[in-house]
C-alpha cells in the first residue's frame, strides 16, 4: 500500500507566486498540487497560515565547527589578510585529535539540528575530516545531503608559493580518500546521500590535483565544490604563482563549469564575474557569514550577469530563513538600491538555484513528479503576521522559530518546530561536555585564552 502525505491548507510557492493549495506526496514523490487527495492518507500536515515551499537547500556548511567556534572569533581583530576561521582552526584540529567518535557525532548532530530547524531539507556539506559521523546523523534524522570531504585539511598545510613534496602527497591522498567515498556510499540512504569532490581552494590544492579532481568528478557525473577568493591572502598566493586572479586561473586550467559550486567569490571583480557567467559556474553566497568579517560578497552583480547563485550559512548561524533576510539586505546595501535583490530572488537562491547546481530537476520545485521535499513556514507570529505578501514576509520578517514542518521524500524531518527523533536535552548535555573539553585543551595548549 502507498504511503501518502498531504500538506494541507497552506499557500503553495510556485516559484513566482503563493497560491492556496494542498501538496500530495505519494511514496516520496509529489503526485498532486490540485487537492486530488487519495482515499487513504497516511499523514496530514497542517499548513494553515503558512507558506509551503520546496524543501530549502543549504548549499555550503562544515558540520562540527559551529558549536565550538561561535562567539570566539567575533569582535577580535582579523588575522592579517586571512579569514575569520584562521582564528579558530586550532579547535578543529583538537576536535579530530582528542575527541571520541561519539563526541564528534554529538557535535555534528547538534549542528544538523540547527540546519533543519533553520528550514533546510537538503544540506550540501563540505566535511572537515571523516564523513561517517555526518552520514550517521543524516541516516537517523532523515534529511538529504550531498557530501564531500575537504582536501587538504587543515588547508594551511599546502599554502604558500609552491606545493611540493610531503604537502603535495597529503593533498593527493586527500583527493583519493574523497574519491573512495563514492564507491563506499553508492546508493546509500535510499538515494538521499550523494557525493561530490571537495578540493579546498585554488591556493591550497596544486594545479595537477585540481585537474585530476575535475576529471574524476566528471567521469562520475558528480559535482566539484570549492572555495574561491575567500580572503585576500588566497588571491595573493594564486596571483604570485600564476599572475592571474583565482577565477581566471581556474578558467585557464579548464576547471570551471556548470558542475562546479564555488563558495564566496568575495574578492573578485567584473572580469571574474563575466568568467563565471560564461562558464556557467554556480556560486554559493554566504552573506551573513562574510558580514562577520565586515565584508560583503557580490550577489546582485552575479544575478544580473545570469550566474546561478545559491545561499548558504557556512559555519555559523544555520538559520537559512534568517539568511534570506541577511543576504538580501546586505546585497541591497552593497548596491545602494532598495528594489533588488527582491524576495523572489532570495527564495530562488535556496530552492531552484541550488537544485540546478546539483543537476537535480526533481528538487527545488513543487510540481508533480518532484521529490516530496517540503518546508512549511508559519506566517502567523507577532513578527511576521499578517502578511500582505507572503514571500516578503518570509524573507524580511521570518526566522527559524517560524519553521513549522519539513519533509524529505514525504517523511517528517521537522514536526511542529521540533526535529523528529532527537532527545534535545541529552544532546545538549553531550555537546556542552564535548565543547568544554576542546576549549579546555585549547586553553592548556595555550592556543586561546578561555575563561572556564
Amino acid at each position, binding site marked *: 500500500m502507498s504511503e501518502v502525505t498531504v500538506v494541507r491548507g497552506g499557500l503553495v510557492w510556485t516559484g*513566482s*507566486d503563493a497560491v492556496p493549495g494542498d501538496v500530495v506526496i505519494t511514496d516520496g514523490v509529489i503526485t498532486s498540487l490540485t487537492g486530488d487527495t487519495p482515499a487513504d492518507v497516511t499523514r496530514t500536515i497542517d499548513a494553515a497560515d503558512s507558506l509551503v515551499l520546496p524543501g530549502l537547500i543549504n548549499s555550503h556548511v562544515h558540520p562540527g565547527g559551529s*558549536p565550538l567556534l*561561535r*562567539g*570566539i572569533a*567575533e*569582535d*577580535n*581583530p582579523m588575522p592579517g589578510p586571512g579569514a*575569520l576561521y584562521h582564528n579558530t582552526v586550532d579547535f578543529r584540529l583538537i576536535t579530530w585529535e582528542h575527541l571520541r567518535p561519539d563526541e564528534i557525532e554529538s557535535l555534528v548532530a*547538534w549542528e544538523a539540528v*540547527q540546519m533543519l*530547524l*533553520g528550514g533546510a531539507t537538503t544540506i550540501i556539506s563540505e566535511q572537515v575530516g571523516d564523513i561517517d559521523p555526518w552520514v550517521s546523523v543524516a541516516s537517523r534524522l532523515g534529511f538529504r545531503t550531498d557530501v564531500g570531504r575537504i582536501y587538504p585539511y587543515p588547508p594551511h598545510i599546502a599554502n604558500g608559493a609552491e606545493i611540493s613534496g610531503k604537502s603535495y602527497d597529503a593533498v593527493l591522498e586527500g583527493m583519493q580518500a574523497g574519491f573512495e567515498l563514492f564507491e563506499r556510499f553508492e546508493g546509500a540512504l535510499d538515494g538521499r546521500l550523494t557525493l561530490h569532490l571537495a578540493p579546498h581552494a585554488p591556493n591550497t590544492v596544486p594545479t595537477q590535483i585540481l585537474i585530476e579532481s575535475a576529471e574524476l568528478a566528471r567521469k562520475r557525473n558528480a559535482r566539484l565544490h570549492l572555495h574561491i577568493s575567500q580572503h585576500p591572502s588566497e588571491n595573493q598566493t594564486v596571483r604570485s604563482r600564476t599572475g592571474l586572479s583565482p577565477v581566471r586561473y581556474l578558467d585557464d586550467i579548464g576547471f570551471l563549469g556548470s558542475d562546479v559550486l564555488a563558495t564566496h567569490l568575495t574578492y573578485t571583480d567584473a572580469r571574474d564575474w563575466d568568467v563565471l557567467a560564461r562558464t556557467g559556474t554556480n556560486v554559493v553566497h554566504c552573506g551573513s557569514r562574510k*558580514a*562577520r*568579517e*565586515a*565584508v*560583503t560578497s557580490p550577489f546582485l552583480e552575479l544575478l544580473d550577469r545570469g550566474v546561478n547563485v545559491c545561499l548558504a550559512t557556512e559555519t*555559523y*548561524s544555520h538559520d537559512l530563513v*534568517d539568511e534570506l533576510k541577511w543576504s538580501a*539586505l*546586505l546585497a*541591497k*546595501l552593497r*548596491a*545602494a*538600491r*532598495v*528594489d*533588488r535583490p*527582491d*524576495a523572489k530572488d532570495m527564495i530562488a537562491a535556496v530552492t531552484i538555484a541550488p537544485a540546478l547546481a546539483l543537476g537535480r530537476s526533481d528538487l527545488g520545485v513543487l510540481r508533480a513528479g518532484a521529490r516530496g521535499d517540503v518546508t512549511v513556514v508559519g506566517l*502567523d507570529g*507577532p*513578527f511576521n*503576521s*499578517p502578511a*500582505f*505578501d507572503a*514571500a*516578503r*514576509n518570509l*524573507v*524580511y*520578517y521570518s*526566522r*527559524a*522559530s517560524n519553521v513549522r514542518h519539513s519533509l524529505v521524500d514525504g517523511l517528517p524531518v521537522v514536526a511542529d518546530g521540533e526535529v523528529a527523533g532527537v532527545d534535545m536535552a541529552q544532546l*545538549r548535555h553531550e*555537546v*556542552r561536555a564535548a*565543547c*568544554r573539553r576542546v*576549549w579546555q585543551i585549547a586553553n592548556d595548549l595555550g592556543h586561546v585564552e*578561555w*575563561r572556564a
Partner: protein
Amino acid sequence: MKGSSKVTVVRGGTIWSGVPRQAPVVADLVIEDGIIAAIEPDFTGGADLELDATSALVLPGLFNSHLHPGGSPLIRGIAEDMELPPNGAFFHNTAAVLGLGRTELSLEEYQSLIEWDCVAMLAGGATTLTVELLGVGYEQIWIDLVGRLGFRCNLGLTYPHNIIKPTPEEAAAGLRDGIALADEHNGKFGDRLRVQLSPHGPDTVTDEVLRETRRTATERGLNVHLHLAQHMGEVKTVQDRSGGLGPVAYLERMGFLGHDVVATHGTYIESGDIARLASSRATIVYCGYRKAKEALMTPFTEYLEGGVNVVLGTDTFSHNMIEDMKFGAILGKIRHGRISRPTALDMVTCATVNAARAMRRDDLGQLVPGHRGDVTIISLAGPFNTPAAEPIKSLVYYSTASDVRHTLVDGQPVVLDGKVCNIDASDIQRRATAAVTRLWELAQDKGVLAPTW
C-alpha cells in the same frame, strides 16, 4: 525580608550587571517591592515569584528607544523591494496606506493593530518602550496598555500629526496636546509612564514651535524626542530655512540641543555634527536595521567613538531587540570594514546603560542593589546559541526573540516563558488580521496599494 514585602527571585542565571568592566556572574537576583535588593549565590529566603534562569543570561531590562505603535502590522512587506522616492525615506512609500488606516479603521480596529504591535515589542525583549505616537486620538489606547501589560514607557505625541503635509497650526496645537498629556499622565502607574515632548523633526516643525518646545521642556523637566537628519529631503528643507545649515547645526544654533534631547537616526550628518551632539550631551537613537531597509548605513561607531550617547530603536518594523543588536553590530563593522568595533558589549550597553542615561534615570539600566527591578532574561540553551563560550557574544550574534524567556518590570512579570502576560495574544491577532485585511482590500480598491503579483 519584611513579612509584607513582595519578593521576586531570578534563580541561577548568568547576570550581566551593566557595571563597566564587571564580568558576568552566576547568581540569584532578588527584587523586593520592585527594587533590586541583592545579587547573591544561593538565596535562601522566601519569594512570591521564582523565575528559573539556569542556562540563561540575566540583563538589565532592554530599552527599545524609538517606536511608532500601530504601523508595523499594516505596512510590513509593502515598501520592501520598492524603489525609494527621490530624496525620500522608506515610509514615504507606505504613507498612503498608513493614512488610510487612520481615516478608515474604527478605533477598535486600530486598537487591535496597536496591541498586536505591542505584543511584538514585548516579545522582542524590551521592558521599556519609547513611543512616538502618530495620529490623533490613540493615546488612551496606549496608556491603557501601559497600565494593563506592566511595561515601562516614555510616551510622546508626535506633532504635527500630518508629517507628509505639515502645517504650523498643527505643530503648535500638537505641542499643546503634548503638554496636556504630560500634565495628566506623567508619572502614572507607579512612575512606569513618563511623558516627553515629541516634535517630529526640524523640517516638519516650525522654528517657533521648536523654540517653544525647548522652553517648555526645560521648565517642566521633560525629555524631547525628535527625528533628526533622517532623509535628504529634511536636510534640504532645513538648509533652505536656515541659510545653509544642516539639521544638527541648525538645532545647535537655536540652543535646542541638550542632555534632555533624544534624536533618532542622525543619518545625513556633516563635519562637526558629532562634536555638536557630544558637547550638548544629546542622545542619538541608532536604527541601523531599519535604515538598512533603505539600502543605506547610518553612522554608529563614529558616534560611539565621538563620545555621543547612543541608544537603539527598532522604529516601525521588526521589534526584535536582539536581532536589532546583531544587525546594528554587523552593519557597523561593514561600514568601516573593521571587525573589532562595534562589539557585542557596545550593543548591550546601548540597549541598557546608555538608554537609561538618555532618560536621565539613575535607577535603571544596570542590575545593582537600589535600581528598579527591570530585567530581561534570555535563554542560552537553544540549538543556535548553545554552548555559549562568551555569553554576551552568544546573546548578540546567536540569539533572537524566541530565546526571550522572561522579562520583569519593577519585579513584576511582563513576559513569562516567552508569552506576553495579561493579554490574549491569539484574540488580538485574529482581530488585527481582520482589520488589516479589510484595510488592504480597501487600499487596493482606492488604488493606493498595488497587489504584488
